[in-house]
């Protein structure tokens, strides 16, 4: 896989990150280096090997359906950059 400017922009958009235009070339170079290094893994034959999803072998760690005291309304809103007595307020999402 080769990272070009378009992919870089797309990734930045998906991650909601800004970068300075002048840094683009350096970033593309670095990202390509990382990918090339990772490509070494292609040398390993993984036919008939199940993908590893969890390191732990635990299964069925589930919770009974009971309500436990959780976060109060006041505490929940405490750190919000913008709020009123009921809601979190955010920049308008639709026109």
């Amino acid at each position, binding site marked *: 896989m080769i990272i070009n400017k378009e992919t870089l922009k*797309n990734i930045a*958009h*998906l991650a*909601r990150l800004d970068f300075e235009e002048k840094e683009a070339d350096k970033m593309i170079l670095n990202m390509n280096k990382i990918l090339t290094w990772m490509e070494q893994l292609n040398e390993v034959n993984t036919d008939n090997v199940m993908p590893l*999803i*969890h390191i*732990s072998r*635990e*299964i*069925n*760690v*589930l*919770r*009974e*359906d*009971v*309500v*436990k005291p*959780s*976060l109060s*309304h006041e505490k*929940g*809103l405490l750190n919000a950059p*913008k709020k*009123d007595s*009921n*809601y*979190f*307020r*955010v*920049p*308008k*999402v*639709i026109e």
Partner: protein
Amino acid sequence: MIMKDKYELVIGLEVHAQLQTVSKAYFSEENTYGSMPNTNISVLTLAHPGTLPKANKTSFDYAIKMGLALGSQITEETIFARKNYFYPDLPKGYQITQDKTPICIGGNVIINLKDNQITPENPEGKTINKEHSIRLTRIHLEEDAGKSLHIDGEEESFIDLNRAGVPLIEFVSEPDIRSADEAHAYLTEIRKLVRYLDVCDGNMEEGSLRCDVNISVRLIGATEYGTRAEIKNLNSFSNVKRAIEYEFERQTALVEQNITFGQETRMFDATTGTTTSLRMKEAMNDYRYFPEPDLTPVVVDKTWIERIKNLMPALPRALFLKFTKEYNLSDYDAEVITAEKETAMYFEEMCKITKNYKAACNWLTGNIKGYLNERTLALNQFPISAKNMAEMVNLIDAGKINHNIAAKQIYPKMLENPTKSAEMIATEDNLLLSTNIADNEAFNLEVEGFIGEIMANFPAKVAEYKAGKTGLLGMFVGEVMKKTKGKANPKTVNELVVKMLAL
């Protein structure tokens, strides 16, 4: 041929049902509708750093129950996945869902369609029920997002996270649906089932049951699918129907004019009945699914499935068959009774006591439904127990009370005194009919007196009867019944009249 007649609809539905668990999907805060904004929240829902989810066991029970009811295969090992996107009503930045390993795979939703087309099998064009099967692709577990409020004149959007993290099951159908009526029948069936199984209250207005429609058109006979649109924001059965009808017009017009159009998401506007393209900043829906590292895989073994099987109530289709085949009710009656689980259960309770199924059905769909509709009550708020209602039906059948007296005098008193049985009320108010002639000499003498009077009033009729016109018997009995104000047992009166006319 009208232009549209050349085309057919191809529809697949995505139905989301909020599970009626008491706590949320991945954290233990309360799952309830209608609380003050942002009161049912937790550190996980708000995506505070270092918080970890833990999946709700009951949400699996509910999803498995649903899958078993629809004949799905239950996936033995499932893992959760993250579906990544940014939106303020989803603070984590991803929805925890199931991607490659949905809890249920396959299955069928059997729908009932009304058909009154004239065919060789149905020459009179009667309305008949036609069963039709819609294939299910999958059912998976996921979580709901919060609610964003956009108020005109406000410069900001308001976020309420009470709904964020509420467990959902999503039913994905194959594109097997061909009309708005079929879509309606499919939704009706899903709604009925989630309510029978007690997994969701099925309330579309409150959003506990929601539906997205994938819709395209193609020439009849074509095997390729057309370009589809996904319609969102459908909060009632009738809006689903309206949106489908609108899209059919819109898409056939485009196809007819050879205008090519791309796959898109459209919003339905209930005030205009139209759909408009949703301009998404994110052109591509690149959700970058990957396995959720914070939740362990869930293995559903045979023991678990057996446990759920044992909890399954009778399903509406099985009850419909039982009521029509064993109880000989009409399709219509059986449909009315099985529409809601509460009604079907009440009826079954009655049928444990009375074998007069038709009478039980009539009381339930007539008097009881009428009472509830007038007062906008639910069946569980009806004062009289199924047992007391059924015992009244039995009293009528045994000839101990008269049907009209029961409906006009005994039943209204039972509504006021739900603890009293029909027999108690009939005894107190002296409304019991005599069933044993010997026991009721006095009353029988009174009745005989009436018969004598009537015979004296209609000498010509008596003569005709004696000459062989036995059809007049009914007239005599009717006259006597009037005199006794319906209190006499018609059977006894009949016997007495025959006896006296024979003298």
